[in-house]
Each structure stands twice: as C-alpha cells, then as structure tokens.
C-alpha cells in the first residue's frame, strides 16, 4: 500500500511508540475514571431509587432494642431474627392515626446451599401487605400459597425451581427483580408458612425461635399513617397505648432514606470532584504534550508544507492523530473499567454499604458512548492549540525555526 496523507498520521503514531503510549495512558486513565465513576454514581442512584420504592411504609414498629437491626435489614445489613407477639402487633395496628398496617416476620437462616451467606426469610401477610405486594406484582400476579416462596434476585434457585432450606425443598414461584438492597438476599413466605419454617429448622439445626412462638411471632408492624398525622405522632400514640410499649423500637423509613441519600450524595459529590480535577489535569497534560510535540515537529510540518501540503492537511494530520489516541484510549479505559466494575458489582455494593443496583444495558451503552466521545473530544481539544499555531498567517516563518 502506497503512503498517502490518510496513512501518514498512523505511521506517525506507529513510529513514535513512546509518545503514543504516554498519550494513550493519560486518555485511558481519564476514560476509566469517567466511565467507572459514572457507572458507580448511576448504580448508587439506581439502588437508592429502588430502595425508596421498596420502603413503602411511614413507620416500622419493632421490638425493644432492635431498631438498628431493622434499619440494617432495609439497607445492607446481615440477616437477623427478632420478634414480638401477634397480640402486641394487633394492638399496635389499632393505634390512633394508623391508616394501613401489615405485619412481617423475619428469620435469619443458617448458611444454605442456595447462597454464599445466610439468608433472610421474610414472612408477610398477602392479605394486608402494602409494601411487598406492589413490588412482587411486577414478577408474580398469583397468590403465594402456604409452603411456597418468592426469591430475591441474588438467591440461587435450583433448576427444578426449589430452594433447599433446613433439609427441605421449598418451591419458588417467582424470582424478584434486583433492588440493590438486602432484600435481594431474602426469600418471602406468607405468614402461615412461618410455623412450618420454624419446625423445619428445629429438625436440622438450632431452632430459630421457640416453638410456642412460631405461630404468633411478628417482627415488625409496618404502618402507613392517616392524613393529618405524622409518623412521630403515631409512634407516640402507640407508646401511649400501654406502659410496656414505651420500649418498642420505631424506625422511620423516610429518615433512613434521607440519611442514606445524604451519604450517597456526599460520595457522588466527592467522586464528581475527583473526576473533574483528574480531567482538568489530564487536559493540561494533553495540551502540554501535544504542544511540545508540535514544537518538536516544526521541521516535519515545514517539510510537508514545502511538498505542497495545505494548512488543512496539516490540521487533519494532527486531528487524526489526536482522534485515534482519544478513541483508542477511550475504548481501552472503558474496557478496563468494565473488567473491574461488572464482575465485582456485588462486592462493590457491599464495600460501599449503600444501596447499589446495576444500571440497565441501554444506560450503560449510553455511558460507554459518552466516555469514549469525551476522550476523543478532550484529545482533539488538547491539539487545537497546535492547530491554531499552524493556522496562523506566515506559519512557515515559525515553522522554519525547526530547520
């Protein structure tokens, strides 16, 4: 193949491996930071939005000293077991200002075959539930029968559609969409299945709760308050129902959401600042390197001008070289970031201790295009100064300095 002006930029890049590699390295780091940071921030926001949708209650009433465990259950804590009795739960449900109330029972399993870690078993009452059912409805529109299970997104269901738990195979009727919260490591059963689960646990391991409580254990009462009431007012009303209710735990999901949102916003702000600083520094480095190499290349450009190259041809050479570096560096940066972020998504989520939910493929494709395009644009912008200098009238006088 004969050399021509189209191939010249590629020859220039090929024959200057050190300079090309150095420029590529800068662009790779910038593209990696932009794409990695954007994915991270998006996944955190997606996780947060999912968590906000899942915490559809104004108030959560739990036994004494278990409020923290309950909060952890909603975000990213370890599976847990705590309970009060159904008669107490029923009284709570009758308090002034309660518009809707439903009861849930939480049981922490032993490590099971289905899962890397302990499993959170959540018993809920489909008849009164207003928290889980709207979410479940996206994947399952039937009725959850006794002994059946709904599995969270991270739970491994056997090929035959069951989960082995406490030596028994439990049929799974649906697997739920990922939420980015601890609910993904949970299985859901109806309240009437709870005694069967307790009984099964007694046969193979330490019983999860005394048998006499199996039929009346309630871990939390989830409440939506009536219009004109605040969650705090209703909590006070509940405490006033009985002297023994003074020590009950009260969790305000809206508050948890707000706290988590604050942590997330802080993290995203730092991340954005870090990426912005990195990009400004990267842009300066690229401009400096392009500009320095342009000085070194005055002789080369003078030579091309003498041979008959137009100013446009010289600009095209610089533009192509910078665009190729931007494109290659951008793609490499996205590839490296993807190798880290996608396979280790759940680990990242755990380490951050924030709701973390992988964004959809369309959004990811958009971010790939954005990261690569930004890398190309930055590289081209970095070379604009050089092009401007070459485009000045009497450029040859400057170019001749290279002779």
């Amino acid at each position: 193949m004969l050399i021509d002006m189209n191939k010249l930029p590629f020859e220039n890049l090929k024959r200057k491996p050190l300079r090309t590699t150095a420029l590529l390295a800068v662009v790779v780091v910038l593209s990696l930071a932009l794409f990695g940071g954007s994915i991270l921030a998006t996944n955190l926001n997606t996780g947060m939005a999912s968590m906000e949708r899942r915490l559809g209650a104004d108030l959560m009433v739990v036994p004494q000293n278990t409020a923290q465990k309950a909060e952890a259950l909603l975000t990213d804590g370890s599976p847990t077991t705590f309970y009060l009795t159904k008669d107490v739960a029923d009284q709570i449900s009758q308090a002034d200002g309660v518009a809707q109330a439903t009861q849930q029972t939480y049981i922490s399993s032993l490590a099971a075959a289905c899962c890397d870690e302990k499993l959170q078993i959540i018993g809920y009452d489909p008849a009164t539930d207003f928290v889980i059912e709207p979410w479940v409805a996206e994947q399952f529109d039937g009725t959850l029968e006794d002994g059946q299970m709904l599995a969270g997104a991270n739970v491994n269901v056997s090929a035959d559609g069951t989960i082995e738990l406490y030596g028994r195979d439990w049929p799974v009727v649906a697997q739920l969409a990922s939420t980015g919260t601890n609910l993904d490591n949970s299985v859901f059963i109806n309240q009437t299945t709870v005694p069967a689960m307790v009984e099964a646990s007694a046969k193979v391991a330490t019983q999860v709760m005394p048998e006499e409580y199996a039929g009346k254990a309630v871990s939390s009462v989830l409440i939506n308050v009536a219009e004109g009431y605040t969650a705090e007012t209703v909590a006070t009303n509940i405490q006033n129902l009985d002297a023994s209710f003074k020590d009950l735990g009260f969790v305000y999901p809206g508050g948890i959401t707000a706290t988590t949102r604050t942590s997330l916003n802080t993290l995203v702000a730092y991340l954005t600042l870090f990426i912005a600083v990195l990009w400004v520094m990267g842009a300066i480095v690229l401009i400096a390197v392009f500009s320095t190499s342009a000085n070194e290349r005055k002789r080369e450009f003078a030579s091309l001008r003498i041979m008959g190259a137009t100013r446009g041809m010289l600009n095209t050479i610089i533009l192509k070289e910078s665009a190729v570096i931007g494109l290659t560096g951008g793609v490499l940066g996205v590839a490296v970031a993807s190798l880290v972020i996608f396979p280790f998504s759940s680990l990242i989520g755990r380490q951050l201790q924030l709701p973390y939910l992988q964004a959809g493929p369309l959004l990811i494709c958009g971010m790939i295009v954005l990261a690569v395009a930004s890398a190309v644009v930055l590289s081209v912008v970095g070379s604009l100064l050089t092009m401007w200098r070459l485009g000045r009238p009497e450029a040859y006088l400057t170019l001749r300095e290279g002779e």
Partner: protein
Amino acid sequence: MALLAITDLTKCFTRRDKPFDAVSHVNLMVDAGEFVAIVGRSGNGKSTLINMIAGLVRPTSGSVTIDGNVVADLSDRELSLLRNRTIGFVTQSQTLLSNLTVLDNVILPATMFPEDKAPEPEQLIARAENLLKQLGVAELMESYPRELSGGEMRRVSIARALMNSPKLLIADEPTGDLDQESTDIVMQLLREQADSGTAVLMVTHDPDALRYADNVYRMDAGVLTEQTGQ
C-alpha cells in the same frame, strides 16, 4: 513567456525598530530549460528570495509569477497545489519525514493530491526507485532518515523534489553536505533536468557547481545582480 518572472520583489524586515530590505527590488526571469545559479554570502537574502518564490514567505512588494500564476493571488490550496505539482524544492537543511522510509518520503508528494488519472502504484514506485538509483541511494529505499548520512539525506531530498517532474526546481545549497563524487552526480542530474525542459534555480556556495549553470547571479545585501565572466 518566462516560466518564472520576478518583478521588483522586496521583503522588508524590522530589526531593533529599524526596517531593512532582506531582498531589495529584485527582477529575474527564468525560462523553461534554463539553469540559473545564485551565489552570495550567508545572510544576504538568498533563502528569503527562494522562500518568496515558493510562496512560503509573503513579499512586502513586487510580484512572483510561476507558469502564469501570480503567487500572491493564489489561495492556500492553489498555492499548495502549485508547490506540489509545478515546483520541486530542495531545502538547505534536512527535511525528510523521520517516520517514513526513504521510498515513502520520495513517493508522498505524488499521492498528496489524488487525481482521477493518477498513475498506478507500481508506476510511482518504479519512478521513485529510478530517481533514487540515479542519485546512487537506491539501496537505502527501506531505510529511515535517521540511518542516513547528511549527504545521503540530501540526495533523497533531491529525489523527492523531482518526483512530480516539476517545471521549476528550486535547490538551496544542493551540494552542501556532499563529497566531490556525489556533487558531480547531483549536479549532472540537475543539468539533465534543465536539458529536459525544467527551469532550475540553485542557490549555492560551491564554486564547482557553478559550471553547470547557464547563468549566475550574485546576491549582495538583498540586491541581485547578474555575474558576468562565467
């Protein structure tokens, strides 16, 4: 009509706020097939003159006409095309592209402005090889410029300048780095170019090179005068 017509050409520079003429009111006609040499001490405006002829430096006044084209009136593209197709330029210093082989350096001017009736690649390669052979550097075709001596680079530059069969060949000190044998080869080649119809304008310090020229001019303090007695 002369292939190269220079009329009252002046280039004025300013040094320490004082203007001076690097090239002063120069008139010169070079016909096709004529070999003109310009001699003179360094800093007397020879390079400025040939840079103005090639349209690389804009004159303060006067005009340069090449093959019927007034250089100052041409757009960047027209001027670039003129440099590529009508002018062959051998510079005083090394201006080979370091990232290309010797062969690619010589071929590049021929592929710079693609044409509908462009020669086949094989023809271009054959022409480049032939030029390099005539200049005695054919064995260096696959080498890169950094592997060449100063004299070899100069000869490759001449081959590059001749690649598009220019009507006007401008050579700034073409024998500057060459030994006697190479000087003879280069000057013989330039003479042959002139004999075959190319107008050759050479700037030189080398007295041995002058005998190949048809006319010799002297440049002194920017003023060009015809030298008699050659």
